[in-house]
C-alpha cells in the first residue's frame, strides 16, 4: 500500500474498515479503528511500526509520570508550611520540566536521528574536509516509518499539554494509541491535538448516513484534485527541475508556478481524503487549509496553509520562546531602545526565527528547506517592519486599502512570493535553486512560451486548458467558501436524484480526466515524504 490513493486503500482497507465498523457493536468499533490503523501502518512501513508502538507506550508512561509528579506535589503542598511551599512548587516544576526534557529528547531525538543524522553528519564531513582534517564521520542511513514527522509532533504536544495542565494524562493506553495512530491522519496529518480527536475517536460514534455522504464527497474531491491536476503537472515539473539548465527563465518560472499548484493540489487533496476518511467514522479532524491563495500577506498565507503545523509551531515554539525570561528582558530593553512599535517586533523576530528554522528543517534534511524557512522568516519580518510605513504612505496618498484592486494586488504579490519560495522548496538542492532563480533573472524571454515550446516539455495544450479550467472552478468554490457557503452540506441536502447525478458526473470526470495509466508516472503524495 503506497498511499491513500492506492487501490489497496480505496478498494480494500477503507471499505473493509467502514463495513466492519458499521456492523460491529459499539465497544468493538474502537478496536476496529485501532486494528485498521496498525494494518495501514504495517502495510506502508512494515516492521517500522515498532517506532509508533514505542512512541505510544512512551507518551502513555511519561504522561502518567507527569500526573503522578503533580499529584505528589499537591499532597506535599497540602501538608507543607506556607514558607516551604515556594520551594516545593519549584521542586515540582523542576521535576516536571525534567520529564518534558526527557520526552523531547526521546521523541525529537528519535526524529532527529532517523531523519536528520545523515544531513548533519554529511555536513560535518564537508566541514572536516574544508578544514583539511583527516577524519570522516560515519554516516548512517535509516529507514523512516511513515508519518514520523507528524505523529511525533502529536506525541510531544500531548505531553506538553499534560504538563501545562490543559488536559489530564490519559490512563487508557488504547485511547492514546488510537489518538496517535489513527490511520487517516497518519500519512500527511493534519497534526491533531489530544483534545480535538482522542475522545471522539474513543467514543466511536455509530455510522451516520450524513457523515458517510459528506466523507465520501470529500474523498472524491480530494482524489480529483490530486489525480486531475497535481499528477498531470508532474512530468513537466520533473523535466524542468531535473534538467533546468536546458530551459529558459520563463519556462523555469512557469515550472515554479506549476509546482506551487501541484503541491497545493497534492497536499490539500490528500488532506481532503484524510478528513473525508475520518468523517466516514464521524470523526472531524481539524482543517489544514483555508484557501491559502486568497491571502493578502505571507503571514496570512501561513495561517491558511498547513494550519495545524503552523499552530503547533506557534503554541510549542513561538510562545514558549517569546514568553521565556531572557526574551522578556530583551523585549523590555528593546522597547526602551527602539520604541514601543519596533522594539517588540525586533525581539519577537528571535522567536519567529526559531519557528521558521524549525519549519524549514521539519520539511526535510537539506539546505534548500532551511533556506525555504529563512526566506519566509525574512518576508514576514520585513512585512512586520514596513507595515507601519505602508499604513502611513497609503493614508497620505488616500489609497483605500480595502479596494478590490489593492486587495488583488496584495494577493498577486503574495502568490508570486510563495511561488518563488516553492522554487527553492522543490529544487534539487539549494545550489540548483539559486541557479534556477538566477536563470529567471538573467535568461528571461517570453519567446519560448509564445512559440508554444512549453508544450514540448511534458504538458500539452489540452492539459493546460484542463488545468486552467479546474483552477477557475477551484476559484469559484473558494469564493463561495469564503462567503460561508458550505458546498458539501448543500449537496447532501439536495434530493437523491440530484446528488446521484453529481456523484456520477464527478466520478466520470475523474475517470476521464485523471492523470493515470499509459503516459503518466504515478506520484506518491508529496508531503508523505516529509
Amino acid at each position, binding site marked *: 500500500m*503506497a498511499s491513500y490513493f*492506492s*487501490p*489497496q486503500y480505496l*478498494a480494500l482497507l477503507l471499505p473493509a474498515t467502514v463495513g466492519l465498523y*458499521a*456492523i460491529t457493536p459499539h465497544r468493538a468499533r474502537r478496536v476496529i479503528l485501532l486494528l485498521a490503523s496498525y494494518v495501514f501502518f504495517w502495510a506502508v512501513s512494515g516492521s517500522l511500526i515498532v517506532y509508533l508502538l514505542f512512541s505510544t507506550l512512551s507518551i502513555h508512561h511519561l504522561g502518567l509520570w507527569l500526573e503522578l509528579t503533580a499529584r505528589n506535589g499537591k499532597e506535599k503542598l497540602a501538608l507543607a508550611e506556607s514558607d516551604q511551599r515556594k520551594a516545593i512548587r519549584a521542586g515540582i516544576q523542576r521535576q516536571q520540566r525534567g520529564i518534558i526534557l526527557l520526552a523531547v529528547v526521546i521523541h525529537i531525538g528519535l526524529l532527529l536521528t532517523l531523519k536528520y543524522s545523515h544531513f548533519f553528519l554529511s555536513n560535518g564531513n564537508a566541514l572536516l574536509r574544508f578544514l583539511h582534517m583527516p577524519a570522516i564521520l560515519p554516516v548512517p542511513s535509516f529507514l523512516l516509518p511513515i508519518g514520523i514527522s507528524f505523529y511525533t509532533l502529536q506525541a510531544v504536544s500531548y505531553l506538553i499539554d499534560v504538563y501545562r495542565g490543559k488536559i489530564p494524562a490519559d490512563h487508557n493506553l488504547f485511547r492514546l494509541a488510537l489518538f496517535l495512530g489513527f490511520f487517516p491522519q497518519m500519512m500527511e496529518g493534519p497534526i491533531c491535538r489530544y483534545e480535538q480527536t482522542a475522545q471522539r475517536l474513543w467514543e466511536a460514534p455509530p455510522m451516520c*448516513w450524513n457523515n458517510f455522504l459528506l466523507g465520501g464527497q470529500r474523498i472524491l474531491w480530494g482524489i480529483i484534485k490530486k489525480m486531475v491536476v497535481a499528477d498531470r503537472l508532474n512530468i513537466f515539473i520533473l523535466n524542468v527541475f531535473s534538467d533546468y539548465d536546458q530551459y529558459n527563465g520563463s519556462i523555469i518560472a512557469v515550472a515554479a508556478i506549476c509546482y506551487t499548484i501541484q503541491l497545493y493540489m497534492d497536499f490539500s487533496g490528500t488532506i481532503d481524503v484524510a478528513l473525508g476518511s475520518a468523517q466516514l467514522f464521524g470523526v472531524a479532524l481539524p482543517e489544514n487549509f483555508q484557501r491559502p491563495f486568497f491571502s493578502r500577506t505571507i503571514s496570512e498565507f501561513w495561517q491558511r496553509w498547513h494550519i495545524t503545523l503552523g499552530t503547533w509551531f506557534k503554541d510549542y515554539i513561538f510562545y514558549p520562546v517569546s514568553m521565556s525570561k531572557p526574551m522578556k528582558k530583551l523585549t523590555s530593553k528593546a522597547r526602551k531602545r527602539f520604541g514601543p512599535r519596533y522594539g517588540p517586533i525586533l525581539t519577537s523576530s528571535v522567536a519567529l526565527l526559531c519557528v521558521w528554522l524549525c519549519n524549514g528543517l521539519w520539511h526535510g534534511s537539506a539546505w534548500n528547506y532551511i533556506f525555504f524557512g529563512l526566506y519566509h522568516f525574512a518576508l514576514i519580518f520585513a512585512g512586520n517592519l514596513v507595515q507601519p510605513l505602508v499604513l502611513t504612505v497609503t493614508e497620505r496618498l488616500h489609497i483605500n486599502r480595502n479596494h478590490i484592486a489593492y486587495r488583488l494586488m496584495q494577493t498577486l504579490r503574495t502568490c508570486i512570493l510563495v511561488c518563488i519560495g516553492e522554487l527553492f522548496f522543490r529544487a534539487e538542492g539549494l545550489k540548483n535553486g539559486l541557479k534556477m532563480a538566477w536563470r529567471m533573472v538573467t535568461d528571461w524571454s517570453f519567446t519560448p512560451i509564445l512559440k508554444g515550446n512549453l508544450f514540448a516539455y511534458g504538458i*500539452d495544450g*489540452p*492539459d493546460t486548458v484542463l488545468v486552467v479550467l479546474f483552477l477557475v472552478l477551484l476559484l469559484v468554490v473558494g469564493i463561495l467558501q469564503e462567503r460561508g457557503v458550505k458546498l458539501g452540506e448543500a449537496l447532501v441536502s439536495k434530493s437523491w436524484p440530484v446528488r*446521484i447525478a453529481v*456523484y*456520477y458526473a464527478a*466520478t*466520470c470526470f475523474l*475517470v*476521464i*480526466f*485523471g492523470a*493515470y*495509466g*499509459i*503516459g503518466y508516472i*504515478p506520484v506518491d503524495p508529496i508531503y508523505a515524504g516529509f
Partner: protein
Amino acid sequence: MVKIAKTLLGLAAFAMGLLVILYGLSFLFVPKNNTKDAGMEEIYANGIQGEPPNSIDVVVVGDSESYSSISPLHIWKTTGYTSYVCGSGRQYLSYSKTLLERAFETQSPKLVILETLCIYRQIPAKTVVMDEVSRYLPILRYHDRWKVMTREDFSPTDGNSYTTPYKGYRHNNKVSGADTSNYMAQTEKIASIPLVNRLLVKQIQELCEANGAKLLLLSTPSTVNWNYQRHNGIQELADELDLEYIDLNTKPQEVPIDWSTDTYDRGDHLNYSGSRKVSQFLAKYLEGTQMFSDRRGDSKYASWNTLLQDYEAKVEKAS
C-alpha cells in the same frame, strides 16, 4: 440490520449504475482502429490486430528481449511459417495476457511463445488491478483519448488497419560487446517468482489451452538479465505447470551467440546478428514440431514474400 441491508443495496445499485455508465462510455473512448492516430497504445505489439484473420501460426509475447531476439521474417524465409512478436518495452505479464486475448480475437495460432524475462518483472498492484478492470472497462485504459477524440469516435469501430513491416521485430545492428565473466554460472539456487506472476502464467496457459494453442516458455540470450537462478526458477515453474521450457542461455552449441558482436548494449539485448541465430534456432524448432505447414507458395501469403524482399534489402543490407 434492515437499515444496513438497505444501505448496502443502495450502494450496490449506485455502483452498478456507475459501471453501466463507464461501460457505455468505453465504446466512445476505445480506439476505433489500431493506429497511433486512433489512440492505440504499443502499436508494434498491437499490430497483430491488423493481420488478416487466422493468418498467424505462432504468437510471441514478452518485453524488449522478445522483439530484439526474434525475427518473424527470418523464420518465414527459412520455414514458411508465419509468426508475430507482440513485444513491448518492460512488458508486464498482465499486459502479455491482454495482448494474447486481443490476438486470439482474430488469430488461431497453434503455438504461443512467452519470453520469460517478464515473468520476473514485479507488477505494481495498481497495474494488476487496472489491467484486470480495464479488460471490462476499456475507458480506464483509453481515458486520455479525450484530447484527440473526433466525430469518428462516435461511430463504430472501423477495423484495424495497422501492422508492422517486420511483424513486431525491431531491428538494431549496432555492436557493443558484453562482459561474460559471471554469465550463467551454475548454481542450485532458485530465483523466486512473484506469486501474482505465477498466477498470471497459469492464466495465460489456460487462455492458450482454451484457444487450442500450446504455450512455450522461452528465455532468449541475455548476459544482463539472465542467470542460472532465474533458469532454475522458470524450470521449476514449467515443471509445475507441465509446460515446455527452452533456455537459449544454456544452449551455446545450438545458438552460438558471440557476446563480443551479437549484442548492441553490452549483453542486455541481442542485435540483428544475434537475432538471426535465435530465429534460426526457432525455425528449426518449429519444423521439428511438425505442427505447421509451409505457406510460401500460398497466394494468400504473398505479402510476406514482398515484405521479406524489403526486409532483406533494408535490414540485411544495413547489417
